[in-house]
């Protein structure tokens, strides 16, 4: 068992863990009861899954450039999905977080704002 | 089964469904989706056939790839123009269907 083998095994373990989180994310998107809860599964489980896959792959990267590139892709996805989820969540609640919200013409009801 | 054959057959299936939808659907947007799926199928056949050429230095035939690249850009610009025309028609008489497809 050489150092190379150990690194490969560790890399595969990380990738496997990443896949497990992808699976959890998909299950969450299917099982959770409402849109906002499903967004949780998407932002957290899938981004962690991608992060673990990236981490596993950096162990096998050819050079430092590739490592930085892989991390850059992960950071971008993290940022993009976080913003996209915020935008969807914001649009779903139609609220702006204020005690006296501005109610648009297409949005007369604010019933979700006080949900617990 | 080779890679080229698998994707080539998939491309043929896409061509068939795209053609059927482009001719059979009534909503113009769906006809456009049909044309786009048809286009993807044609591109897929081309690239799949290119993957069956003899590779030199690990590269398949670049000419179909260049043609498909051109095709994708032309397809999206044609779709954009068609969508603009669809919106124009909808502004004009509030319908997203061609006159002969409208229900009496």
């Amino acid at each position, binding site marked *: 068992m050489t150092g190379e083998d150990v690194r490969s095994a560790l890399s595969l373990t990380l990738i496997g863990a990443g896949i497990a989180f992808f699976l959890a994310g998909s299950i969450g998107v299917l099982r959770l009861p409402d849109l906002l809860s499903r967004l949780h599964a998407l932002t957290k489980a899938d981004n962690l899954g991608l992060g673990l896959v990236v981490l596993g792959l950096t162990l096998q990267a050819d050079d430092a450039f590739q490592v930085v590139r892989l991390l850059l892709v992960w950071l971008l996805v993290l940022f993009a999905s976080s913003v996209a989820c915020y935008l969807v969540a914001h649009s779903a609640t139609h609220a702006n977080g204020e005690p006296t919200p501005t109610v648009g013409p297409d949005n007369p009801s604010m019933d979700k704002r006080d949900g617990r | 089964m080779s890679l*080229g054959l698998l994707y080539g057959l998939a491309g043929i299936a*896409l061509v068939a*469904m795209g053609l059927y939808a482009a001719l059979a659907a009534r909503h113009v947007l769906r006809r456009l989706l049909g044309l786009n*799926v048809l286009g993807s199928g044609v591109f897929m056949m081309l690239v799949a056939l290119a993957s069956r050429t003899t*590779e030199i230095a690990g590269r398949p*035939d670049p000419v179909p790839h260049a043609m498909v690249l*051109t095709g994708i850009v032309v397809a999206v*610009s044609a779709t*954009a*123009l068609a969508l603009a025309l669809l919106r124009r028609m909808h502004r004009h008489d509030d319908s997203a269907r061609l006159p002969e497809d409208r229900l009496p």
Partner: protein
Amino acid sequence: MAAEVHALDFVLVVLLLWLGWRALASADLFKAVVQFIVFGLLVSLAWVRLGAPDVALAEAAIGAGLAGALLLDTLARLGRKGATDEVRPLGLTPARAGIALASLGLVILLVASVLALPESWPGLTAPALQQLGASGVTNPVTATLLNYRGYDTLLEIGVLLLAVLGVWILDAEAALPAAPADPMLSLLLRVLLPLTVAAAGYLLWVGAHAPGGAFQGAALLAAGGVLWHLARPLSLPASRPVRAAVVLGFAVFLGVGVATAVFGGGFLTFPPAYAGAVILLIEAAAMVSIAVIMVALFVGRPAQGTK
């Protein structure tokens, strides 16, 4: 790229066929459009598997950016009534049976001809690679697009130009009700715009020797422009610089062609010594033009542009 078939390919093909069909047959048009967007995403994976990363880059940039944006924008403008289709949009009726039969006939014809083809043939790989040294670039796809078959690419930019002229000729569309400025959307734009510009420049540069090029870069830039329009609505056709940018690519390409015809070996025949520089010049101009054209196709003709 490994040419053997993997489990991945079967999963991918099944998903492609299912999504392609659902995009056409889903009663709800919004659902159909989302399925079409996902379909485009998976098609770019198929290009990767078929050893065409240049095409995959273009499909990813266009599919995830402009194409989806155009379709969603149109759905919004059609309104709830306009975006409703019948429950079974492709249900079989006597009239459609003919179409179905014709499609089926085409399938049989195509399958028979694909099966009749030899398992392997030389294609144009050898001549394309032999001339690569004189083409000015080392990526054979870029060499094909800008040197061997420069006519195609010149005319392709012409098609884009005609498309945007077509959109501008139509009468103005009423602006959609302005949504309030969203701080997170501006943040998204502020972070992504410089990155898309840098990545587009990178794709332009890398296209000379590896997958990439002007079209991929332009599609990426255009997506940045779409984001810009969403965060702060642009009025594109009005300004003179925009019109100049729209014709820049075609003009430079045509100018180089005329110059080579008058002083050199013929229309769009580049002297090998300068071919690399000439291609870079044409590609840079084409990238700016195509990006501006694509954004203009998305923006359409806003109401304030009219007299």
